[in-house]
């Protein structure tokens, strides 16, 4: 437990809904709309937490527990993930496996909660989710392996604190490839374009949004907050690779990382405004591409 860890977790908890707001504003800007307020997700969360709920008669406690387990998992994952160059709250050798495991547990319960309703829409979303995540998982773990090999350390905390100008000087191509692979994982896991469209609630094209179709009230608030936090956590892995600022000054490091997150959010907005969603059968190719990138990065870093 370190001061920087507490700060980075607090920043994640407080600012993650803002990230969604930034993305939405950028998209509105590109579409020539005024757009929703920057703080819309905060308002949404506050409102949802005050509301009642509707449950499906088909469902069991899994529908109700899914959001709670999901948020608990992503919170623990956030405690393991360092923000940019700053430290994480908890760090130990091999914590990156636990990090991936927690995200997988979150996904598993989201999928089960979706299947719990017996809805064919949600079954469809769940089916796509497990397919894409099965392919995203090797990319994430191999990417982290590249970083572990490059820095010679086994915990997210020490990997990201050792990742700096020196490694960039030595193995820039490998790092770029890893960051690219992470970006694909980031877009897939957070259900963004080109894999999934967060805006199409009721069309047959989407994954994450359709799985949570039957959640309402406080459950939906938990889900939306967990999704925003997941966006932040996975984003911080990319920012940590691309902008590893280790100035020795805590406030400067944090500021640099926050700047990085802002740039990331803006670029997600730009990607979403300038690209169409991929056809579903092409998504596995994108993910396999990400795996190949990490393998290439691994070869480059071993060279």
């Amino acid at each position, binding site marked *: 437990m370190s001061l920087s860890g507490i700060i980075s977790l607090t920043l994640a908890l407080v600012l993650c809904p803002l990230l969604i707001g930034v993305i939405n504003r950028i998209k509105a800007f590109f579409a020539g709309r005024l757009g929703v307020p920057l703080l819309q997700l905060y308002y949404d969360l506050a409102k949802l937490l005050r509301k*009642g*709920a*509707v*449950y*499906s*008669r*088909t*469902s*069991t406690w899994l529908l*109700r*527990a899914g959001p*709670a*387990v999901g948020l*608990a*998992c992503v*919170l*623990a994952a956030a405690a393991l993930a360092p923000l940019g160059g700053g430290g994480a709250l*908890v760090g*130990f050798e*091999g914590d990156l*496996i636990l990090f991936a495991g*927690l995200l*997988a*547990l979150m*996904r*598993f319960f989201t*999928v*089960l909660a979706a*299947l*719990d*309703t*017996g*809805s064919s*829409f949600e*079954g469809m979303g*769940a*089916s*796509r989710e*497990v*397919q894409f*995540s*099965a392919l*995203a*998982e*090797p990319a*994430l*773990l191999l990417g982290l*392996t590249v970083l572990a*090999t490059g820095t*010679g*350390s*086994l915990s997210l905390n020490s990997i990201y604190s050792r990742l700096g100008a020196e490694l960039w000087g030595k193995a820039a191509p490998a790092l770029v490839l890893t960051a690219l692979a992470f970006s694909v994982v980031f877009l897939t896991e957070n259900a963004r374009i080109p894999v999934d469209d967060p805006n199409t609630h009721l069309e047959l094209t989407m994954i994450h949004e359709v799985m949570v179709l039957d959640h309402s*009230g*406080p459950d939906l608030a*938990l889900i939306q907050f967990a999704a925003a936090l997941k966006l932040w956590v996975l984003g911080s892995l990319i920012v940590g690779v691309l902008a590893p600022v280790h100035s020795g000054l805590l406030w400067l490091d944090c500021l640099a990382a926050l700047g990085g997150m802002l740039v990331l959010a803006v670029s997600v907005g730009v990607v979403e405004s300038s690209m169409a969603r991929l056809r579903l059968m092409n998504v596995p190719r994108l993910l396999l591409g990400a*795996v190949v990138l*990490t*393998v290439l990065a*691994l070869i480059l870093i*071993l060279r």
Partner: protein
Amino acid sequence: MGLFVVSLFCLLAGGGLALVFGRSRLWSSRFGVTGALLGSLFGLAAALRGLGSGQPWQFRLAWSIPGGSLNFGLDPLSAFFLLTLFLISGLTSIFGSKYLEAHAEHKNPGVSWFYFNVLVASMAVVFTARNALLFLVSWEIMAVSSFFLVTFEHEDPRVREAGFTYLVATHLGTAFLVLFFILLGQQAGSFEFEDMAGAGAGSAGLLFLLALVGFGSKAGIVPFHVWLPEAHPSAPSHVSALMSGVMIKTGIYGLLRAIVFLGPPPPWWGWCLVGIGLSSGILGVLFALAQHDLKRLLAYHSVENIGIIFLGLGLGLLGWQAGAMPLAVAGFAGALFHVLNHAVFKGLLFLDAGVVLQAVGRRNLDSLGGLYRRMPWTGLSFLVGAVAITGLPPLNGFISEFLIFRAGLAGAILPLRTVTITASLVIGGLALIGGLAAACFAKSFGIIFLGEPRGAVYADIHDPGPAMRLPLLVLAGLCLVLGLSAPWLLSFLGPVISTITGFEPAVVRGPLIATSAILVYVSATSAVVLALSAGFFLLRRRLLARRKVRLAVTWDCGYAAPSPRMQYTGSSFVRPLTALFQPLLAGRTQFSAPDEIFPRRGTGLVTHVPDLFRNYLYDPLFRWISRVAGQFQRLQHGNIHLYVLYIAATLFVLLIWKLGVGL
């Protein structure tokens, strides 16, 4: 030692009495179960004492067979596998006591209990035998008794065929083992295990390959796995649990024992195990994805989990060879812990499958659904098993996979390039296996227990009675306990690793303690996640306490007449993945599209995914063998005179040969 002998006695006495009292269904069952239960309890005590004290014992009785002796021994390696065996055998026998009652009208439970107890006793002897002949004899008894258990419902021709496949496969494997022990015994000059240790150095490579094929076919590695998805689903479910949970681990035990004999490994052994582990793991889970029958699906997952164990062993061997202790210890510890964990959660899942099968009477999971609300305890225990086998925190499956991942990472940062590449392959492969397993168990739990029934009509079904529920709950509880208390359990694996590798206990202890320290963090984080989950769950309940909470129909986008048949089925759920891996899962598809306004009967889609290796390797191979063997039928024409001529001719040739050698 005394405890172990008492345990064997209880098992055999119980089995024998069950056979003798076979006419009385009540008493044969009682004797069989009591024998199995007492035997398991005494055996468990013996195993725990052997593992805890670390004091190996050995005793030997004379045997009239040349080269053979009744030589038993218990070292930490044996004790660890005995622990796994007796844990599962005890719980499955409790389950079986009620499970077999459903068959009591037309079956003699005495025979089944006799073979069950003999199977447990023979496995116990396999794990403790210190003489090659004793080992092979008990290995054979194990194979034959399990064959009779598999063919319990032999009226069904499919069960007979499965049993036959199993019998052929197990004997082909044993043939390699006979060769292995003969060659090794020849070099050692004796069939005693203590003489064999380190004797195989001369032709270690060949011996390793023999052991790999022989023991690997029992463990169910690809491509020797084809018998497994046939045999395990055909057996009664408590037997499937014992076979999948423990019996296939005799292959792992044998391989480890062989490694003890053959001494320090060259690197290619490690690569071999990693290669086999990757192919078994990935193909096992892919074949599992395509199954419609729950027990077949679980059987394929055994292939996958054996693959994961092999990945750990392979990394362990590479670390041993490279002298990298953190890698070696984490690899072996992960593999060994996964042996125990897999026994627990696979046992649990097979027992749950038995409950479902008996309650619903249908194997095809695409027609099930909504069982959770009717059998909550079964559903909950299946959920626990599913989370555990998928390798998700906080349960035991995650811990063993964590250790193997940890070994992979330790290998990845090693300055040895070959090890780094192998270790990275393991990490990528294990991640893919984990993702696919999550898909498979989201499917099996979600389709069977959640939603609404998809076609099956349930009569009055509910959770089973206490005798069948107890093992489920104990095993589910063990998944959690083993997961959270792993840091403290890990130290018991130290002596086992020392036995396999011959490292000094002190050398193993260092990395093991370091790993335990890491696992403390893992367990703590898991506990926090559990607490947070419960906290958020209670929070939302509290928030909703005074608000309007409505129950309504599942949101269906305004559709007027939703029906349960519109739900996603298991096949449609995994369709994107099976389509992606189409070349490996080439199946038969019969599709007749509805062509008129009122679809005729018989329109529909039927898919079946046969085993790749069975279809393209074994079936052609055995057809060829049978054709070649058919040529020899000419010699067999039933004419006794000619048979006598054969004998005379053979004797004549032998005589000439003998005289020729004499000259």
